């Protein structure tokens, strides 16, 4: 992959957040969410954020890091070229979905109005075990579901079918539960 141009990099410095005693995870995920397709994220942190590498790898980003002066670290998360587009998956989909097992539960949620599809999917996940895969057919991209899946550590991959009328969603149980 060629080196990304400067305009294709978004920068996030989480040092002020951490100094203020706040959790930087949501800010990082928001920044990742706001990336345009092909855009990279440069993260600056007061330590080497190793746990984030696997989270980002699941979202299709490779990491290259270097130490800065004063013990700070800079990590460049770059989208792995072609990984998602080749598989035809929506941005944010876990690229590992290609190797997930067959779904053990299938839900047809096309005729339900929001937020019912989200209710059914989260309820169904509650009965599954970590590693289990669920398939759901929806009439639209479930934008409010994705943050909830992320908070419960579930991975997902999805895309519209060729006609654009149905959204196909795979969710792999990541071990998390309802947290309210």
């Amino acid at each position: 992959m060629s080196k990304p141009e400067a305009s294709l990099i978004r920068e996030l410095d989480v040092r002020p957040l951490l100094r203020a005693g706040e959790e930087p995870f949501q800010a990082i995920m928001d920044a990742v969410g706001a990336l345009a397709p092909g855009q990279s994220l440069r993260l600056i942190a007061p330590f080497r954020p190793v746990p984030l590498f696997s989270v980002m790898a699941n979202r299709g980003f490779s990491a290259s890091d270097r130490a800065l002066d004063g013990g700070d670290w800079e990590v460049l998360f770059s989208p792995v070229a072609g990984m998602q587009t080749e598989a035809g998956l929506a941005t944010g989909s876990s690229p590992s979905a290609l190797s997930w097992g067959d779904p053990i539960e299938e839900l047809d949620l096309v005729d339900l109005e929001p937020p019912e599809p989200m209710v059914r999917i989260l309820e169904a996940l509650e009965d599954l075990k970590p590693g289990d895969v669920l398939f759901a057919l929806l009439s639209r991209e479930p934008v409010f579901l994705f943050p909830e899946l992320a908070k419960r550590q579930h991975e997902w991959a999805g895309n519209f079918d060729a006609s654009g009328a149905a959204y196909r969603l795979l969710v792999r149980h990541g071990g998390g539960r309802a947290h309210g």
Partner: protein
Amino acid sequence: MPMASLSRWTMSYFAAALAFLLAAEALAVAGIGYPAAGLSEPATLILVHLVAIGWLSLAMAGALLQFVPVLVSRPLAFPKLALPALFMLAIGLVLLCTGFATLAGWIDAPLDLMPLGAVFLLCGFSLLGFMLVATLLSTRPVALFARFVLTGLACLAITALSGTAFSTILSGRSGWLGPVALLPGGLPFHALLGLGGWLGLIAFGVSYRLFVMFMIAPEPPARRVRPVLLVSGLGLALAFAGLVAPFASFEPGARWIAAVLVVLAAAGLFYGRDILALYRARRRKALEINMLASIPAFIALGFGLALLPAAILAHAGDGPVAALVFLIAFGWLGGLTLAQLVKIVSFVTWLETYAPRLGRGPAPRVGDLVAMPRTGRWFLLSYGGVLLGAATLAIEAAAGFRLAMVLCLIGTAGLMVELVQIRRLSEIKAADRPPAHERPQLLATRAEERRPVHVEARSLAHPRA
């Protein structure tokens, strides 16, 4: 990543909007503004701007902050600007109205409050526009519905700029304009761009997407929706031409206004056909209150748009024209906004309260948060007031109009109470409500404050632990 979260300050926008609506209706009940005063007199200007900016624009802004990110599947850009924008808009409107009150001779204050208020409004709308445009352009290609919103925002910019120019004229500081006379000829075009472009066109565009979702109807094909945007765009371009015509020493008259309205009515016809098709093709047979209460709004739009050009061409006088504009502003835009507020507030409140708990046990449905049929009765009262209001305006019966506004005022107050009850989860059995400290706050959603329960997040914050 396609992701949308709850807009933190949308509820505050709605609360401010409803407060301004109540204020406007109370003033109308007190007999201030048309028909007791002339259409372009300061008292009427106060009323008109309380409704157009305070009520309709703030409600539209709050709804857009929530739904534009949902509809483009991207997070809202620069969400921290939402609250400053609301403050600037509210302060700007109060200053503007104080300026109008000075102009009316009710109070003794500098007339410069008018342009000062206009500048605040301009800043507030700029912040809002900046957030929305940045969000809309974060996905490519730009969707058709996004083009409705972008065109509407362009109309908002022209409306706000022309309003600022008018305010300098009214405050006696029009030297910069030279011999160009923008008033009173520019007023109808300013109103057309504001009501038709910013509020109307965006209501068109957003309703296509939301109604498909709310009624589970098939998405109308782009080839049917595109003409609505193109024809509206043509009408609004004509309105813009009418606004700036004085710079070319041309005075557009009633025919120009009627031409704009005829073109907008044609767009409305295409739009109405699509909305009717959406209602007919819906897979969710039982209509919820928001879709039921929108039906009178569409009827009001149909009547208003069909008759207004004729009334202007026939020089029918102030009464019928005011009645038809009132029908469009209160019946269509106001009615549609109130109806969808019930849905948006209940949906957001439900999501905020129950999304994190889903899967842990039975959760109420969104509709369970709304008190029915009580909410429906407030809508009946409200629309009854609108119908009576339009009739009494048409025959210039000032006392009858005040009575009509009493009905609207009671309807609005009733719906406001219902919306507060929705936020407080009053319709949910006590056992199914979350503990008090986790319930939604009245004016702000807490979704963004919620700490993610993420192993990685914890270890990220304390790497050596």
